[in-house]
């Protein structure tokens, strides 16, 4: 990754143009030919530095209630539980972490009723007790990494 890649990344993290020819517009802003810009973006995607190019939903605005959920899971049961939990489309992050509570995931659902129902269904299916940690207030959510 060179300086030009860094500049492209800083630019397209928030300002991908909603215009007919977005890559041409980005090429104009960075002062390089469109095919060069597209080639660089393709490489950044291939290297998975860019995980995705697209829109990020605002779950709060969409009215999706969400929670962070944690559990203490025996090491041998982690993968099975991760598969079970990961099947739900509202689960976007799922990690093993250090600590007494070693299994963590985020869950978003269409309604508060669904949120409770999904959690109790997963508890029943897995035999694991979940600790539900709903947010009270969001102070920060940042999607921009400066290069």
């Amino acid at each position, binding site marked *: 990754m060179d300086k030009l890649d860094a500049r492209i*990344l800083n630019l*397209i*993290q*928030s300002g*991908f143009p*909603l*215009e*007919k*020819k*977005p890559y041409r517009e980005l090429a104009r802003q960075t002062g390089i030919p*469109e095919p060069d810009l597209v080639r660089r*973006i393709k490489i950044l995607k291939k290297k998975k*530095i*860019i*995980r*995705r*190019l*697209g*829109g*990020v*939903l*605002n*779950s*709060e*605005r*969409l*009215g*999706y*209630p969400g*929670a962070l959920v944690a559990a203490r899971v025996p090491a041998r049961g982690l*993968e099975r539980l*991760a598969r079970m939990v*990961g099947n739900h*489309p509202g689960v*976007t*992050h*799922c*990690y*093993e*972490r*250090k*600590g007494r*509570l070693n299994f*963590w*995931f985020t869950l*978003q659902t*269409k309604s508060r009723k669904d949120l*409770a129902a999904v959690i109790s269904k997963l508890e029943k299916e897995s035999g694991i007790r979940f*600790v539900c*940690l*709903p*947010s*009270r*207030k*969001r*102070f*920060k*959510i940042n*999607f921009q*990494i400066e290069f």
Partner: protein
Amino acid sequence: MTIKKSFGSKKPRLSHRDREVLKELTGDLPTTPEPYLELAGKIGISEKEFLTRARKLLREGYLRKVGAIISPSRAGFRANGMTVFKAPSKSVARLGKKLSTYPEVTHCYERVAPPDFPYNLYAMIHGRTRKEVITRVRKIARELNLDEYQILFSTREFKKTSLRPLG
């Protein structure tokens, strides 16, 4: 289990078309010269209508942004430490705001603290190495006078994806 009230309970009214546009936009945009033409074609509307709806969805806040989503680990920030602090309830709002001013803090939430996990302030802190994360957390803890905390480093990533419109 009871779920206590948190934000995000107001139901918005979105048309079927808007939901389709959201669904397409939350996929991976093609790197062809006219990517929106392609997406509009998939749901059978004109490119112009697609773009008009997309701009409206961004303006009205249904989309936080349209752009590149970077993988912190691929970009060199390999350590990911979810740090949980025990903050006095009367100062949690002030401390949350202060925590958010640190650039290494990417997410910061106040959460309901259950009796068996008595932490109420959560911050996601990235660093190039675990050592870097620990140093940063120590500095923050000292500056904000928050001496009860845990850094929960991730040891395995099972799933990391972007949210798509539900149902």
